[in-house]
């Protein structure tokens, strides 16, 4: 349903925008109906930029992002509104996603004015309650409260409920549980997984590989704005082929294996993405970067 084809994004940085930062380079993948795809990468790998482009919070640099075959880059007015009925996003920090001055459920009211002006009071209330129950919240406990009276997990589920209210097809979840406690984290993750079983497509953006493995069917690994490996989660995680993926897998703190027992060697401190492509070798590697199929449903980047 969602497909990205050769998408790139260049930011102008530095004084007067003199320097260029290529945040996303030639990224292509798709999200099928009812499927969860994880976008995995470290800070500066461009994963959030991709999420924001899909949500049209950033303009698409080059390449095309299309949903059901229609490019989203040129959507305007009612077309864009229609698009937001299909695609919504939830972001990392639940506390800054809400306006602290208003009650948290005000956002449902805004939604009603925008999308359901004809709904009657009773119908609407029913709809809100249903979507709250759908994410495992008790409407009586969470409605008519200010954001500071709710916990991070509740707020995050509130935002998912808002997205579900629109009966969307695709949810872009950008690091939505990294700020939550371990005990509530899994509850929110289960809500997502249940919604997915109900037919929702999911783009799950994360740096946490174990969460990605838990929820997604396919995984896309990003490094410095490029896809280095992608395919079925099972295959990518069991048999990582690209050195970067291997390094990531080896650095994940696990409960069943100590770092010293893994044979990938010492962790290397990653270089920030501003330096990306600065050495001659890397520039050359970028030039030759192509994805090849290693086994059915498992692609890996090769340079040369």
């Amino acid at each position, binding site marked *: 349903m969602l497909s990205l084809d050769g998408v790139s994004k260049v930011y102008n940085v530095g004084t007067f925008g003199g320097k260029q930062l290529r945040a996303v380079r030639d990224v292509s993948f798709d999200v099928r109906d009812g499927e969860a795809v994880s976008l995995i990468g470290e*800070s500066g790998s461009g994963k959030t930029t991709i999420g924001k482009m899909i949500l049209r919070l950033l303009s698409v640099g080059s390449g095309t992002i299309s949903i059901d075959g229609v490019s989203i880059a040129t959507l305007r007015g009612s077309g864009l509104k229609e698009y937001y009925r299909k695609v919504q996003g939830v972001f990392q920090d639940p506390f800054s996603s809400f306006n602290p001055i208003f009650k948290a459920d005000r956002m449902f009211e805004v939604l009603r004015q925008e999308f359901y002006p004809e709904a009657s009071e009773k119908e609407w209330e029913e709809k809100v309650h249903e979507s709250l129950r759908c994410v495992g919240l008790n409407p009586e406990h969470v409605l008519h409260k200010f954001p500071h009276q709710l916990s991070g997990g509740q707020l995050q589920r509130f935002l998912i409920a808002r997205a579900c209210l629109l009966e969307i097809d695709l949810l872009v979840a950008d690091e939505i549980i990294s700020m939550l406690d371990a005990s509530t984290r899994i509850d929110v993750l289960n809500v997502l997984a249940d919604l997915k079983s109900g037919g929702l497509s999911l783009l799950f953006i994360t740096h946490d590989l174990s969460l990605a*493995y*838990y929820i997604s069917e396919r995984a896309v690994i990003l490094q410095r704005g490029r896809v280095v490996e992608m395919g079925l989660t099972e295959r990518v995680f069991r048999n990582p082929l690209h050195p970067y993926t291997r390094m990531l897998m080896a650095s994940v*703190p*696990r*409960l069943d294996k100590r*770092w010293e027992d893994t044979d990938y060697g*010492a*962790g290397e*401190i990653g270089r920030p993405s501003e330096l990306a492509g600065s050495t001659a070798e890397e520039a050359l590697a970028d030039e030759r970067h192509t994805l090849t199929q290693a086994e059915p449903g498992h692609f890996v980047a090769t340079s040369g």
Partner: protein
Amino acid sequence: MSLTVENLRVYYQTLRGDVKALDGATFTLDDGEIMGLAGESGCGKTTLAHSLTRLSPPLRYVEGRVTLDGQELPIADMSRMNDFRMKKLSVIPQYAMNALNPTRKIGTIIRDLLRSRHVEADTSLQELYRRLDLVRLPYDILKRYPIELSGGMKQRMVMVVSTLLNPSLLIADEITSALDVATQKAVAEMLVEFRDRALVKSMIVITHDVSILYQLADSILIMYAGQLSEKASTQTIIRAPRHPYTKLLISSLPTIGVRHAEHKLSGIPGTTPLLLDPPAGCRFRDRCPVAFSKCSEVPPFVEVTDGHWVACWKESETHA
């Protein structure tokens, strides 16, 4: 025994009364031990770090004794603690990324700090270079401003500064939380190296991420709602936890190899109690699957087997 904490109570003063953020902590830390301290937000782990280093209002000292290397720490007295900070015990704060003064160069910050501790900066210069090598930072970092460093570099820089005078105890508060997996691993391994090279004698590593602790800690202390729940060796906490809270916490962690479709994990139902007026008895009682009548009394933190401390009536009864 490097550090001994006895019945430490520290409350936050608020207009609505005292928030009992740390309510009766008793534990010991051996020489050379790296102890992990884990728990949910608001369980009092950072309060514990603050009480050991800088107990300032709104924090209020209520009772308890802290002994470091046989010497009692005057933790309630801000100015007398100055003799101990950085020399005897040091902290890498949660906000390490913002801990460096943005208007001064790194080298100047270090010189000022050393002067405030009455240490001649030149004598420790060689040592400083050695430490920079250890955390793989270039020497010219001393001539740079904090804004020129990445998050991971600042974190490592603060590690160097905090440990420069070889403190006996180092408290690392959530230092890996904001980092990427690869940087996280590197920083965690550096912490262990600092201990192995005896730059610091013992360490308390505070985090909410239990899987990081499994990688680096010798023992783990689990806190819940201002009280200690369980302390044991890392292997025991992960493989054979006794306290119901620890059991639920460990089982709710997703690791690679667990998928929603095959094995659905579940969180811990309910929320942590408000510490302004905490429930009497065991504070985990309302969320506990095995709670019974006895739980209306506060369970003592007792040693059930050698080195394994648990605060739960179910456990202390069967082993009494």
